[in-house]
């Protein structure tokens, strides 16, 4: 099962991509982008009332939701967001304490995955150069579709040193970027709880569809 674990719809202030248009694009590109589902990880927010079940049924694409928060160790994807989590952490705060986020999110049934770790300023690698490593990190986003040259490459050393597992995501803010990078899971994922459990358990790897897209362009 292949999921794009990192995407932004027009609910994020820097994206212009409606969720339905993502699904239309994935439907049109199904032969080169075999994406079974996407996770919407809007910036610094969580909308408890958002409901995409009608779109899921219409397009046959799983839609899960998380969030991308900003911490003193860079950005992190949060999966398994709960009301308790949003009460404990102000997702709009761009200086959330990373260690508290990793530990607290796990205690509350979710998982925090540092994203684009090789990116300057907002990636884990740079912070590990000057600060102690975080306890409790299980996986990092080793493949990010929005990374510049060298940023994804920087992550392998981090993974080798700390034994993290690796996920991939498009970090799409534009319709045509959805699904270009994703994560292949050995297990079936049907719910956000399935996703959180799988991320802790293992049995997944990043997948990159950019070359395949270039060949058919």
């Amino acid at each position, binding site marked *: 099962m292949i999921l794009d674990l990192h995407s932004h719809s027009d609910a994020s*202030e820097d994206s212009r991509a409606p969720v339905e248009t993502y699904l239309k694009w994935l439907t049109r590109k199904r032969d080169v982008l075999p994406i079974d589902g996407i996770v919407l990880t809007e910036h*610094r927010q969580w909308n408890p009332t958002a409901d995409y079940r009608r779109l899921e049924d219409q397009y046959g694409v799983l839609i899960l939701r998380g969030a991308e928060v900003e911490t003193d160790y860079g*950005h992190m994807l949060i999966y398994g967001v709960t009301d308790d989590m949003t009460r404990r952490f102000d997702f*709009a705060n*761009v*200086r959330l304490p990373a260690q508290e986020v990793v530990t607290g999110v796990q205690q509350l049934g979710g998982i925090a995955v540092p994203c684009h770790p090789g*990116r*300057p*300023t*907002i990636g884990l690698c740079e912070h590990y150069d000057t600060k102690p490593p975080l306890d409790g990190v299980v996986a990092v986003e080793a493949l990010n579709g929005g990374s510049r040259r060298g940023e994804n490459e920087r992550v392998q050393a981090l993974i080798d040193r700390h034994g993290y597992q690796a996920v991939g995501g498009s970090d799409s803010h534009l319709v045509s970027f959805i699904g270009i990078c994703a994560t292949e899971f050995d297990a079936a994922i049907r719910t956000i709880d399935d996703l959180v459990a799988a991320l802790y358990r293992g049995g997944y790897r990043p997948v990159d569809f950019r070359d395949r897209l270039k060949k058919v362009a």
Partner: protein
Amino acid sequence: MTLEFDRSILGTEFDRTAFAPISAEEIRVYAAASGEPCPAPDVAPPTFVLRQRGDRFMPANIAKLGRVGFDAGKDIDFGVPVRVGDVLTAVSTVHDIYEKTGRSGSMGFLILRTELTNQHGEQVAVIDQKMMFR
């Protein structure tokens, strides 16, 4: 940078400007300059609404948000079209102030919302002007 501001400023009106009736000549000049055709005789091109700016661009009492700033784009929600003879009113508020972090560090954003209505009270446009500061 850390944005420090009084959140009570959000939603407060800082400008209200009533414009003179829109003339056919204004619309003609705008269409010629922008290259955007009029959708119908006596109807202005949609982006004509951007020409209707209030007297005050920023609130007078807003805290300094950074050393430098620039125009980070606009979102426009279009309502009824502007027609010759319309009398428009622009009401501007501070819609949002927030901070985010990126490759180059932290940035502050100020969203100024201008709501344009015509003489019938119909909404002509809602324009969100985004300014970035650092």
